[in-house]
């Protein structure tokens, strides 16, 4: 059986169904740790995790650092201003400096696609965990989305997620709405859901679809209104208009009119369907304010699951190091 133990986590595109279930199952055990009074386990005692965020992301960074601390790892939190690039230090030199401090893993967030792959090549002895690279991948977000889906669906059956393996994903209808072109979350989500056996539809204005999407394991739908009833999961993406992606549609208002999950549209979604969003939400753009607070929305659960998923990833990738086998 394949495993992610001892491997870097750069992308979900090369993970098998077994790999994914392994992470989800490990995360489930860490949810239980989270419920204890003493929320700390010694699994990574003496290990050093560097968190290297070239791009600000308070939530993801806090979530990773909390996860590392709960596993008793030492955390080196390096604030890398994006200006250090302009000062002339190359990505390679920065990583070499950090490696010299003696680290087991680096959690990397970077505004450039592929940064995690590059770093993994520069420091082959260090596990690299991609905490989001440009428009490429955000593997832990994809994992926590899948984890949240399995958790909620298993609870409805009165089961633990780990008892269900990947069975609950078989034929599950996942609808992904919005800016897929620029979304690392969409790429990781699609990789995870496809490997787990779900059926995926995407719906977006054509300008927000990535080139070559016809080769992805998804079905493309033109109009949101044509596919609302189909969905078991409605996964909304953030329209990153602060980065200029708003220019790909005439206006935010038009986007909301045609692709926003309004209260009216929510009424047509199946009552048992789940509404998901990776945050931060643009209330009134991808979804109406009221929709975010509807019972079907599991957005806060997604946030809560961030820590156990990242604990699972840190534990599996680091605890599989060669030293442990010797």
């Amino acid at each position, binding site marked *: 059986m394949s495993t992610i133990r001892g491997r870097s986590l750069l992308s979900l595109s090369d993970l098998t169904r077994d790999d994914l279930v392994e992470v989800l199952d490990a995360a489930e055990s860490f949810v239980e740790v989270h419920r204890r009074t003493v929320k700390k386990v010694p699994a990574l005692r003496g290990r050093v995790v560097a968190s290297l965020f070239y791009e600000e992301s308070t939530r993801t960074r806090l979530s990773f650092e909390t996860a590392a601390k709960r596993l008793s790892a030492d955390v080196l939190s390096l604030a890398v201003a994006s200006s250090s690039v302009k000062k002339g230090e190359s990505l390679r030199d920065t990583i070499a400096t950090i490696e010299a401090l003696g680290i087991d893993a680096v959690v990397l967030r970077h505004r450039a696609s592929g940064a995690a792959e*590059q770093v993994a090549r520069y420091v082959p002895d260090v596990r690299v965990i991609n905490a989001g690279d440009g428009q490429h991948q955000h593997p832990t977000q994809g994992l926590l989305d899948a984890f949240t889906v399995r958790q909620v669906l298993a609870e409805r059956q009165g089961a633990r997620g780990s008892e269900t393996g990947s069975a609950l994903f078989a034929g599950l209808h996942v609808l992904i709405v919005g800016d897929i072109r620029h979304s690392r979350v969409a790429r990781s989500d699609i990789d995870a859901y496809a490997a787990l056996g779900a059926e995926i539809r995407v719906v977006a204005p054509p300008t927000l679809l990535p080139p070559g999407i016809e080769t992805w394991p998804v079905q493309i739908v033109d109009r949101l209104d044509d596919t609302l009833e189909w969905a078991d999961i409605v996964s909304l993406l953030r329209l990153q208009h602060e980065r200029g992606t708003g220019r790909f549609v005439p206006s935010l208002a038009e986007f909301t009119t045609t692709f926003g999950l309004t209260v009216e549209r929510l009424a047509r979604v199946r009552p048992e369907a789940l509404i998901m969003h990776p945050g931060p939400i643009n209330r009134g753009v991808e979804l109406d304010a009221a929709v975010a607070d509807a019972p079907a929305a599991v957005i806060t659960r997604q946030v809560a699951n961030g820590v156990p998923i990242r604990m699972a990833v840190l534990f599996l990738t680091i605890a599989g190091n060669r030293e442990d086998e010797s």
Partner: protein
Amino acid sequence: MRVLIRGGLVVGRQAAIADVLIADGRVHEVGATLSARGAAVIDAEGCWVGPAFVDMHAHLREPGNEDAETIESGARAGAVGGYGALVAMPNTDPALDSVAAVRFVLEVGRRAPIDVAAAASITVGRRGQDLTAMAELAEIGVRIFTDDGTAVRDPAVLRRALTYARPLGVRIAEHAEDPDLVGDGVMNEGIWSGRLGLTGRPAVAELVTVLRDIELARETGGSLHILHVSSAGALAAIVRARREGVDVTTEVTPHHLTLDESACASYDANVKVNPPLRTAADVSALRRALRDGEIDAVATDHAPHAPETKDQAFDEAPAGVLGLEHAAALTLEALGGPSSDPQRFFDLLSRHPAALAGLRGPRCPQGLGQHGGWVEPGDEAHLVVFDPRRQWVVDRATLQSRARNTPYHGRQMTGRAVATIVGGRVVARDGAMA
């Protein structure tokens, strides 16, 4: 100094096994079993002996970026690659947009081991507005004008350049990618860019600029050259226009003939180039056209960058790869390997680019030698002995270039210049300076 090249396939007007005796900087005699008396002998058995290669598109970075390359180091890279002459591109800092700047390059180039000619920019400062002193520059021997690195954005400026240059016997060379369609793209737009989350530079950006430029050349009667054509659509447009009588020539780079967009999956900035590596289907179309003689020249677009700049993230690193030291092997690969037609090989790497750069024929500009000849007695002796079966492995540590940004590090190559002769002197042997 006398040099005897013994027993090679001499690729002149015909290709035949012969000895070539060089004396006093010229080809002295070509024939069977010539006397080696007083001559250094190069054993050329199994090799092709032809005119030294000419690169009409090399970025030598001097003045302004000498940490990446100098005229001297670029010329050394050319020498070991089998080149006898290079045309230095004008996107230096400052740009080669004046007689003084061009004279500087020619002056420094005179001390280099091979001939160095210079192209000049179309517009002052490559800003796309005011024409350079094209007549004066042509007078001192400039034959290629280009704002390479970017297309001339304003069609009125390009139209004026094509018109003004018409009586000067020079060519307007375009980096044909529409800047607006390219945007901040870093690789070919398509299946791979979508998966990798990298912003695309669509092939249609090349096509629309090629079509625009062709129509302006047709209308003005000007002479147009399309630099580094990379996509099947743009190539087809050029071939069609030429059949219709438009004076348009083109070149292709070794990397566009041997790598496709999938190489970007490594996110290694050493495969980042403009125009970008295209699809496998584009590569096939370029190779077919190369064999069929539809492409005039192989040009390296040799683009050295200091190592730290290529160690950045893919979309932050500068575009460009090294070319001079492995271009001939890659051209041979694209033509079909050691059994391919040696005439075509020397046409692409020497005769045609020499003619386009004004380095062939009676009046050689810039005080440089006559290149791209037929290996006949009386010719200036700028020759290469090329072994089409020699196997070697690219090692970035041993390159002559100051830079290291080759995408071919570790790749097995077939075919190598075993001797480069410029002005009758052996300047390089077996991948090293002589």
